[in-house]
């Protein structure tokens, strides 16, 4: 099992103590079991049309919370997040297959992304988001990345639904985008610590360089050189 990890801070221990979705009333608990049965079917076999429709219905239950988060960020912080209102079926199925998580436990069905200039701005924005959404979980993957991925995720709990807010610096985002593209080209598992060893090592090295540049231990020029070296290696493979 490969899971993205990180330093996790929770501000609503009563509902998020288990890391799962918050407790719901009886009717929702019943539907939760239906959701998890759907998740099991998706984990085991190709999705049928009926399953795709049911999954989309489930995703739509996050729409209101998602809209609320986007609107709040726009109005209160004057930021313009890019939104992904419903996690793609591919990503959901891949996560179900990769991890032991149940569909009803996924915290990133709905989400958005904010890109900032540097870690200082990232810290400020995360603090703002924590104030704005009092019930939240913060997953800080900067010092301890998940398979090279560095970012801070704030999971805001709104109307009983989790909405993931990804806060990345430009460099963290560039690394993540590069990793995504290489995962498409080489091996989907690259994103999760798998794939060819050489490719994995090079992405990890670049991620460490990003970290050291961001904390001021390395000059940005070192990153430029590394990027070019990496590109040469990529094109040779």
């Amino acid at each position, binding site marked *: 099992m490969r899971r993205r990890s990180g330093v996790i801070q929770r501000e609503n221990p009563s509902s998020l103590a288990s890391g799962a979705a918050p407790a719901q009333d009886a009717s929702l608990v019943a539907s939760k079991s239906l959701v998890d049965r759907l998740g099991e079917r998706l984990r085991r076999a190709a999705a049928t*049309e009926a399953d795709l429709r049911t999954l989309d219905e489930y995703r*739509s239950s996050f729409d209101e919370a998602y809209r609320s988060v986007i609107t709040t960020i726009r109005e209160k912080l004057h930021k*313009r997040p*890019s939104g992904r209102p419903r996690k*793609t079926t591919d990503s959901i199925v891949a996560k179900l297959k990769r991890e032991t998580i149940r569909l009803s436990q996924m915290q990133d069905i709905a989400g958005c992304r904010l890109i900032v200039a540097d870690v200082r701005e990232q810290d400020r924005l995360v603090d703002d988001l924590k104030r704005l959404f009092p019930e939240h979980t913060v997953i800080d993957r900067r010092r301890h990345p998940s398979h090279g991925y560095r970012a801070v995720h704030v999971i805001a709990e709104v109307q009983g639904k989790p909405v993931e807010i990804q806060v990345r610096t430009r460099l963290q985002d560039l690394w993540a985008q590069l990793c995504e593209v290489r995962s498409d080209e080489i091996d989907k598992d690259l994103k999760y610590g798998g794939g060819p060893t050489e490719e994995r090592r090079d992405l990890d090295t670049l991620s460490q360089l990003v970290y050291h540049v961001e904390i001021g231990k390395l000059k940005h020029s070192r990153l430029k050189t590394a990027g070019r070296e990496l590109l040469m290696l990529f094109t040779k493979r």
Partner: protein
Amino acid sequence: MIFLIEFDRAAHRILRFEHFDDAQREVAVKRRLALEIETATAKLDHEVVLLEAADEKQIRQTHRRYFKSVEDLVADFDEAEAK
């Protein structure tokens, strides 16, 4: 604005890129599902996703992986100034 993207991961190519106004959210949602069912039925390994941003420029920045090659992204590292 809302953007519907159909993406061929293996070929790293956008096959469909449609724009919707915010008022057309329901249309976009239905369109995405119909397209997903269509590609799944045809057993095509395509990603079908709805994204939302102020404008197209923003989506091209925050979701570069759909729009850029590895070469482009490495060049972006050159341009990004970490302070």
